[in-house]
């Protein structure tokens, strides 16, 4: 392939990595508007020129859904932005979302050859740019569906895994219906990820694009309660089912004082703000309560989202309490950086031991102890060990626990024969098949808690497996008929 890039590799390497404009930290602390404005045309062109067009593009290996990264970047260089976004869409139907929330630094960009000595190509920002370009100019056209399949497939859950699986199957020609328990589509993209990282308008547009493929969506439908999996198979006529109900049940620390008023799970706190719009109370009906001093327990992306949300809701002091050190925090580097800019106070190597309340049952402080890192544990991270006599109290009026989620048990409890594993996950094969024929699962429901893009990978893989399964079914049916 002849290069469309006029620059020699040595010249490309001299271009510094482009950074998008961002809302200044002081300003954004008082609003829920998106932090990053993304690239403009000029910056994306400059950034695209940095791609070395490697013969062996390692970046693709780093992408869980296998986007042809050099391919789309070459189209950006030719200013064929629509061609570029369609190139991405071949592998990933939700580019505007992934361009915003994927941990590129530990995936595609981590393997970018430029990153070995310099800084990697800003692949995520380019992905977002072409997706936004298409949205802004309203140039989206639903891909043509060339085959028609009679088989009906049910998708349970409208998060990243469910939406991706639906898009894939619809493009193969299947009759796809998504069932969502909440009143709005998107799963964790809706209730979990804040507006300032993923505007809900983007999610709404991506959802419309799924519908444009002929996918039907039922909201307000709790599978297992409103109807069961077996009813789907026996009465509704679904030939295959993909379970993608995520990990929606919050874990709690199990320390004294957790039921005091002012103590939230991150799930509740974020659901109030993101899904229910509590940041606009009393214009919206759902309230949320935030003290002048608030603390979030945890070190993942959810913790980061919660503490930055608390800050925006008016917490003058917003602490992030984590029992290991900064180095072990699972949160994306960009989020940690943004949180620091916004004045979040990081209390590392700090372990909460009890929550203190007043006579009326309101939280007034959290008792912590200092930790030090000991020997590595089974996760390979150094185990935090308490420092004797180091207890101290942090005065707070709000405490948010962001220490992980596990799958919601409703489907497992109402579907006989569905094999479950540790912490309530649904056990699947490598091709997302569960212990029951025709039923597939993926995303956090089978992983227990991972990223948006891994959920999408599972959704894609499940679609391929469902296709193979249904092809096998129709082959054996026609064999039986002949």
């Amino acid at each position, binding site marked *: 392939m002849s290069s469309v890039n006029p620059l020699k590799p040595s010249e490309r390497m001299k271009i510094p990595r482009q950074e998008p404009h961002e809302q200044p930290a002081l300003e954004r602390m008082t609003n829920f508007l998106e932090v990053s404005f993304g690239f403009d045309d000029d910056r994306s062109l400059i950034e695209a020129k940095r791609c070395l067009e490697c013969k062996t593009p390692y970046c693709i290996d780093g992408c869980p859904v296998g986007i042809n990264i050099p391919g789309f970047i070459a189209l950006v260089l030719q200013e064929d932005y629509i061609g570029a976004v369609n190139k991405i869409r071949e592998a990933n139907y939700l580019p505007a979302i992934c361009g915003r929330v994927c941990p590129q630094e530990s995936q595609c960009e981590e393997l970018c050859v430029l990153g070995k000595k310099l800084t990697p190509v800003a692949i995520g920002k380019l992905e977002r740019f072409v997706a936004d370009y298409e949205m802004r100019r309203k140039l989206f056209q639903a891909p043509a569906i060339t085959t028609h399949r009679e088989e009906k497939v049910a998708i349970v859950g409208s998060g990243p895994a469910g939406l991706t699986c639906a898009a894939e199957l619809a493009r193969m020609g299947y009759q796809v219906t998504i069932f969502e328990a909440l009143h709005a589509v998107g799963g964790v993209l809706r209730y979990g990820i804040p507006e300032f990282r993923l505007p809900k308008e983007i999610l709404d547009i991506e959802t419309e694009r799924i519908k444009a493929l002929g996918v039907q969506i039922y909201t307000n439908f709790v599978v297992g*309660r409103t109807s069961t999996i077996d009813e789907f198979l026996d009465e509704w006529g679904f030939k295959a089912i993909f379970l993608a109900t995520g990990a929606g049940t919050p874990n709690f620390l199990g320390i004294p004082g957790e039921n005091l008023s002012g103590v939230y799970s991150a799930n509740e706190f974020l659901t109030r703000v993101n899904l229910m719009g509590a940041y606009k*109370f009393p214009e919206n009906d*759902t309230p949320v309560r935030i003290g002048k001093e608030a603390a979030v327990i945890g070190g993942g992306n959810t913790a980061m989202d919660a503490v930055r949300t608390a800050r925006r809701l008016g917490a003058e002091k917003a602490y992030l309490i984590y029992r290991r050190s900064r180095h072990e925090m699972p949160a994306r580097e960009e989020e940690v950086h943004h949180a620091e800019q916004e004045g979040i106070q990081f209390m590392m190597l700090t372990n909460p031991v009890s929550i203190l309340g007043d006579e009326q049952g309101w939280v007034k402080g959290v008792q912590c102890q200092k930790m030090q890192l000991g020997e590595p544990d089974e996760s390979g991270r150094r185990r935090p060990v308490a420092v004797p006599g180091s207890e101290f109290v942090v005065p707070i009026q709000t405490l948010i626990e962001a220490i992980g989620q596990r799958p919601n048990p409703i489907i497992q409890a109402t579907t006989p024969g569905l094999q479950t594993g540790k912490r309530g996950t649904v056990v699947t094969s490598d091709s997302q098949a569960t212990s029951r024929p025709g039923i597939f699962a993926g995303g956090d429901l089978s992983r227990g808690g991972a990223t948006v893009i891994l959920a999408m990978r599972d959704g894609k893989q499940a679609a391929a497996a469902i296709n193979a399964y249904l092809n096998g079914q129709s082959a054996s049916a026609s064999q039986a008929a002949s």
Partner: protein
Amino acid sequence: MFKIVEKDDLSSTISRFRIEAPFIARKRKAGNFIMVRLHEGGERIPLTIADSNPSEGTITIIVQAVGKTTKELCTMKAGSFVLDVVGPLGNPTPIENYGTVICVGGGVGTAELYPIAKALKDAGNIVHTIIGARSRDLVILENEMREVSTALYVTTDDGSYARKGFVTDQLKDVLDAPHLIKAVYAIGPLPMMKAVANLTHPYGVHTLVSLNTIMVDGTGMCGGCRVTVNGQMRFACVDGPEFDGHKVDFDELMMRNRTYVDLERISDDQHQCRLATKAKELAS
């Protein structure tokens, strides 16, 4: 969108709605609840399903106008639509033929108790039902309850109707009478359920209470509904809503339920204020 097909007022503040929700009507069992959101920007509130008609595809809810959303709902008329209804949620009430049972309903809790009393009667139990309210106006479903009960007792706090006093006064009399009471079902305000549980405890009678808690999603996601039962953290929405009344930490739950009282008042006041402005506009 879910259509209100019928509405009637049971008292000045309590209304009964029949709502089109065919999937829910088919599945609903006594003890199940729904989450309701009236409109965009509205909050999600849990409401117990009082009855259902699977062939018509409707469910019945009985609502007392106490907060912003319930007040708003109670102004809605037949033919109008509720934006979101989801269910049936929560575990159904365990119904068995125990022999003799007592059902205790306080205030609008009587509406939630009705399907349970009916199911217990249908299962062959002798059902003693006690319903209580602050005053005569708030006594609801008396006739319906009489139909599904072997004996019905009514109390009012102010004595404006039937026996003056609390449901617990009547309950004590029934417990002291020579019946072999196997179980007590109590639904009403938390202080009432606590009082019932405290009363039945020394009698050693199994007592189920149905907890009304803070809730956002109603499907086990938020944990806002957590309560301490037998020293363990449980979620009212998926582990309940009914629990062994002798094991519930009522005091903690009553404190938790006060979390948003002041904010709810702001929300309600603003709503009333907007209504007043609208009324003024219409009048001028």
